[in-house]
């Protein structure tokens, strides 16, 4: 399998067999911790002059693809795929939970967190789809 990074959050269609459908997605903090753990030594060794942002780190790791620890490659992909899934879930909550919001949380508007707290509180009577997307979004 060709080692190819993707910009975090950019691609939703990346297949990641290692992430189960119902699994909890990684937060940015979890992803950062995982990257530091698996790739930290390689980053210090090969990429100590580039920064985390603006795709610099990814480009640098790509350039040293053949030299870096395979666990770093694997975990990087897991992190990217998981975050993509989380971002997709965050972006689709409004749509997926529209019916539940109308039925269970009348009068609340999206955007300030109140609607979401209502849906989280009402988890027992909220649809399976809506519950799943809230879990994937990391909002529970």
């Amino acid at each position, binding site marked *: 399998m060709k080692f190819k990074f993707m910009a*975090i*959050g950019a691609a939703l269609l990346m297949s990641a067999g290692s*992430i*189960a459908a119902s*699994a*909890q997605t*990684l*937060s*940015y*903090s*979890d*992803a*950062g*911790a*995982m*990257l*530091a*753990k698996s*790739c*930290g030594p390689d*980053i*210090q060794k090969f990429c*100590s*002059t*580039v*920064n*985390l*942002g*603006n*795709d610099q*780190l990814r480009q640098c790791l790509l350039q040293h693809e053949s030299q870096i620890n395979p666990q770093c490659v694997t975990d990087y992909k*897991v992190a990217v795929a998981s975050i993509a899934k989380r*971002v997709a879930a*965050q972006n689709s909550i409004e749509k997926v939970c529209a019916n539940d919001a109308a039925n269970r949380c009348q009068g609340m508007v999206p*955007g*300030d*967190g109140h609607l*979401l707290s209502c849906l989280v509180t009402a988890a027992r009577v909220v649809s399976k789809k809506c519950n799943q997307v809230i879990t994937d979004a*990391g*909002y529970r």
Partner: protein
Amino acid sequence: MTLRTAGMALAVSLLALAGPASAQTMLTSDQIAQSLQNVTSDAPVISAAVLQAMALQHMKQFPGESGVTQPLPVKLDSLAQINIQIQFQLNSAIIKPESYAAVGSMADAIHNPILGGYKFLVVGNTDTTGNRADNMKLSQARADAIVEALTTTFNVDPRRLEAVGLGEESLLDTANPKDPINRRVQLINVGKFLPTP
């Protein structure tokens, strides 16, 4: 699948509630988001440009290399904020991998729906070790690096963040100006950001 590790927990001190003397506390990004929510009505209106101008004026008004204890003429403490320790390489704006989780938790907090629509300043501070003018420059570069990581790798809308470096002009512990506790990044909530429809 939970890939949490002990190392990803974040040491932050909660300034908004307890003031600068508060002890370091372990906070989750949910707690960060909660504490950043406490915007008071009497909080000063502040921007990166205003804050930077104050810091430069502060250097002129109180020259010297001994560490200035006078605060900046703005009550930053009254703004909802958190202090985060981010590890950088020596004399560089390169964020060390051990702090990726800390930057990530800033991103998680900013993405939290309870903070939706708010704008933040990312403020870099140094201690008084080294040259004062260099510290000013370095803290700006470091604040810029964090904003760059947040707005690219961590998907934060760039319109919601501004970076400003204050060098050693806004010490946390004025009694111990060389204490590393003064080296910190402040994430300050500066109020509602209303996107154009």
